[in-house]
């Protein structure tokens, strides 16, 4: 059987908010990679209490981060090297977040009852992802790994290898917990992309089964994309990755082959009957 798989995500709620501050597109102006000075004209870093050592990261792609080296003025901070301030296409990142060094890489449960669930379900090695700073934009492209799980006064805490903001729920992915789709049973597949100015948009791929019993839908985590172009770009990226996985699976010389969809963390996978 030729199959593709996507990771099954568990939504983790009851988190303590680990954010010290967050800054949106309208408040930060520039980052100079030579001087490593980040300028945010509408910010008040000194008044807010931003301190050297705090962790600065992009909540929609926290694969890299930097720390505050010096707080130069209300509107300027100097960062350590490594702050990625542009997307792959050269667009300035829409926002950045600051967390205190002590909590940037930890996620803490907010109550004892949920802590018991966390403790029983999640282990070192499980993968973790966040929704991004604003759920209306997109998910965090970074996928962190749990390095340590501990209980502190009956409160569960996970230590991660990447900073993730937890002002929104997190998703945890457990190894081998996946949805698997039999590619040869797909009668047709349809990508639908919709966007209306003022009404947001969406996109998703539907797999129609040849046996008419079960259909599948795959959604990228994308709520209210800000433009038609964004919707089209996300739809194209999703369809390319799904097709690539199907091709790899079918091309395998082995009678049974399974391929994980690239970057499928952050995707939602629904059954329709």
């Amino acid at each position, binding site marked *: 059987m030729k199959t593709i798989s996507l990771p099954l995500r568990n939504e983790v709620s009851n988190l303590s908010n680990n954010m010290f501050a967050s800054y949106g597109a309208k408040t930060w102006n520039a980052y100079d990679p030579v001087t490593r000075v980040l300028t945010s004209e509408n910010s008040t870093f000194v008044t807010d209490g931003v301190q050297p050592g705090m962790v600065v990261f992009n909540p929609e792609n926290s694969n890299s981060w930097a720390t505050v080296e010096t707080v130069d003025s209300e509107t300027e901070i100097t960062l350590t090297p490594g702050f990625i301030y542009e997307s792959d296409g050269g667009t300035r990142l829409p926002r950045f977040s600051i967390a205190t060094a002590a909590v940037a890489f930890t996620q803490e449960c907010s109550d004892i009852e949920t802590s018991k669930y966390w403790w029983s379900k999640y282990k070192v090695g499980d993968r973790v992802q966040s929704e991004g700073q604003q759920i209306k934009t997109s998910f965090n492209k970074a996928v962190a790994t749990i390095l340590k799980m501990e209980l502190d006064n009956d409160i569960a805490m996970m230590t991660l290898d990447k900073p993730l903001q937890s002002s929104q729920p997190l998703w945890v992915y457990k190894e081998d917990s996946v949805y698997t789709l039999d590619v040869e049973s797909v009668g*047709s597949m349809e990508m*639908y992309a919709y966007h209306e100015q003022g009404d947001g948009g969406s996109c998703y791929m539907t797999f129609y089964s*040849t046996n008419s019993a079960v259909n599948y839908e795959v959604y990228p985590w994308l709520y209210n994309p800000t433009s*038609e172009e964004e919707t089209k770009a996300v739809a194209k990226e999703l369809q390319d990755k799904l*097709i690539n996985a199907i*091709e790899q699976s079918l091309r395998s010389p082995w009678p049974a082959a399974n391929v994980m969809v690239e970057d499928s963390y952050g995707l939602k996978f629904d059954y329709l009957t």
Partner: protein
Amino acid sequence: MTKFLGPFENSDSSENLDFYTTWVNLDAIVTIRQDSATSSTVEAPQYSAGRRLDIEFYGPNPGDGDLPDTDYNYLRFVNANFIYMLESSPTDFFFEPQYPKDFPTRNIYVS
């Protein structure tokens, strides 16, 4: 053998983004038919599965309805593409539709 023909693209609105992109698995399709030469729909039953795909042809612009009743060779277009897939290398799995010169539309919806 599993092989996908596509993308077929259909734009349902001239005002908003309302866009369908579809790929069809050749596997299980044993016949293709059209009610009449001027019909805007070509049917591709997947008999083993009890399912039927309808390939619907619309005017070339987003939101267009059917083109006026004329034989546009829709059946021949689908047939040629399926034969092209059948004759293809066993290591190829996705095929872009081949459009004859002057084919009247690329606004095609598969349901």
